[in-house]
């Protein structure tokens, strides 16, 4: 545990020094600041922020994670020549990447709210969005590590990372739409709930929808979603699904990492 902490601190230091995280923080700060200055309406700002969060966070996390892992390859090899166990090293690197990135997001995202005094206006929405952002960061860093451990070739790995992002952010919803069109004669509401669990981006999006587009969700379909995702049970299940999206790729990659021949 002590070792994990040591590696973690070193990694955090290293990540922050790379300045990317600072840029990332600054990006969220600017977006939030801009939205509040130009629109003034908190609800509109929330919807725009949600749109940005569910697109940008997965993309940045998965690319940043892969690049970081590939760039630390020599460091990892060097560390592995020391008498330390692979588990501690791996956990240390993982958390050392995910924590600064989520912190960067958290700070950049929260600052405009605090500056404009808008936290209290929609406190539930604020914390929900913060939580979704942080969970998505962890999910996509875990995915990027899985890719990087399996794929030694850096350019192939990066290509795969972008492909996975594209599938989860865009293609998956296209498939969902196809399913809706092809099976329109069947009651699909519950199937949709299950389908959404297989995509962390959709999970994050739907969780947030339940708080902000309530009015649009009052039809029959909306009522079914609302009853599941709007209930405390639904929120807990969704968060567990998101956690599973962190834990499963992490353990898989950890297993590969332990057996990997550097």
């Amino acid at each position, binding site marked *: 545990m002590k070792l994990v902490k040591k590696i973690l601190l070193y990694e955090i230091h290293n990540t922050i020094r790379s300045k990317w995280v600072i840029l990332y923080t600054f990006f969220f700060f600017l977006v939030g600041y801009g939205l509040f200055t130009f*629109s003034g*309406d908190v*609800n509109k700002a929330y919807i725009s922020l949600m749109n940005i969060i*569910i697109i940008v966070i997965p993309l940045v996390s998965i690319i940043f994670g892969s690049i970081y892992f590939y760039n630390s390859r020599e460091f990892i090899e060097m560390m592995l020549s020391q008498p330390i166990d692979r588990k501690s090293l791996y956990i240390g690197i993982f958390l050392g990447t995910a924590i600064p990135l989520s912190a960067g997001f958290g700070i950049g995202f929260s600052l405009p709210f605090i500056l404009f005094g808008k936290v209290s206006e929609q406190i539930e929405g604020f914390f929900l969005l913060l939580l979704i952002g942080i969970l998505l960061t962890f999910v996509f860093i875990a995915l990027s590590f899985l890719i990087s451990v399996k794929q030694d070739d850096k350019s192939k790995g990066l290509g795969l990372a972008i492909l996975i992002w594209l599938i989860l952010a865009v*293609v998956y*919803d296209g498939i969902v739409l196809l399913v809706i069109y092809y099976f329109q004669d069947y009651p699909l509401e519950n199937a949709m709930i299950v389908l959404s669990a297989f995509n962390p981006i959709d999970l994050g999006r739907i969780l947030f929808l339940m708080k902000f587009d309530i*009015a649009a969700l009052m039809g029959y379909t909306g009522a079914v979603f609302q009853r599941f995702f709007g209930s405390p049970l639904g929120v807990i299940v969704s968060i567990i699904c998101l956690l599973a999206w962190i834990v499963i790729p992490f353990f898989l990659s950890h297993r590969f990492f332990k057996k990997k021949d550097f």
Partner: protein
Amino acid sequence: MINQIKLIFILSFILFSSLTFSKEIIVSSTGSINSILKAISQSNDYDTILIKQGEYAEGNIIVNKKLTFIGESYPIIDAKGIGEIFTVTSNEVHISGLVIKNSGVSFLEENAGIRLEEVKGCSITNNRFINNFFAIYLAKSADCIINGNYIEGVKKREANSGNGIHLWYCRDITIENNKILDHRDGIYFEFVRKGKILNNHSENNLRYGLHFMFSDSCEYARNTFVNNGAGVAVMYTKNVLMTDNHFSKNWGPASYGILLKDISDSKIEKNIFDENSIGLYMEGCNRVTIEKNNFTKNGWALKLMANSMGNYFYDNNFIANSFDISTNSRQNFNTFEKNYWAEYNGYDIDKDGFGDIPFRPVTMFSMMIESHPTSLVLLHSLFIDILNIAESIIPAITPEALTDPKPRMRMLN
């Protein structure tokens, strides 16, 4: 002789005064006149009946003389759940300051707290109606005022709940400053001419906050309709003026800020539509002007069915709605101009305050939802955004003609 003349004069004066001047009859549970029915039987036209504090349970009270009822410290008139309470069949009856309770639920008769039947010039002011089937019921009456009443129903099922204020075949009625809660319809208008509904608050009603049919040339202004089962419905009417009303939190699968059906030559101005499932629903509406309204945080700000023509939408604000407009056709015969759309992201090079490229408020996704409601699950998805952008460049399924050629760059206050 002079004395005799004096006496005759005084006597005739007394006689005369008793004929023309009104007297005041005091009803109190401890006094000699202890019931309202007794007071009415002893009264003449233009008398005032003052009802002292207390509880009076005397069944149906038929008012067939021009009387004024005044309650002192809110006496309670209780029907104990059987029949009607006041039935007014005479002109110029004024009722104020009473608590009217428990008129009977019936499936055959529309028992009311106060019923005005074919009368003129009456007023019902500052009463409290609690737990009545119908609270105030006007039939074939004219020139009456209903002001400052507090009306609270019981909110059971639609079938055994009546309306708060019910008007049938009336004209020139003013309904002002009333608060209506938990009835079936808050205010009900059928075949009314020149009615005015001002400053009322209608909340938590089972069906409509205001239900309005075949009532031409009416006006409603500065009312608040909150959290009613289905919002407000205005149907089969022309020349209605709706201004400064607030429609809020009407949530449900069939819930509307306002539902307009077969309305023509009317005006909807300066209203606020806030957090409704559907802000404004228009079906078969012609030549209606919709101006200076605020649509915020609705599911659908506007649902415009294709059988509506010649409506004119301008100077409205559309902010943070899940969908601004949805429609069921590729045709459009309505005009949109100078509205502010929060969704608009065009530019304004000539700095005249209006965007240089037209805005298309109907997105592909809103058309998709009309045909495939399940696709709602994809709301705000990146994939859908891409589709919407592609559709806005080359319209394939959205109505091409439904555009705002001069969208505002800034919100209108």
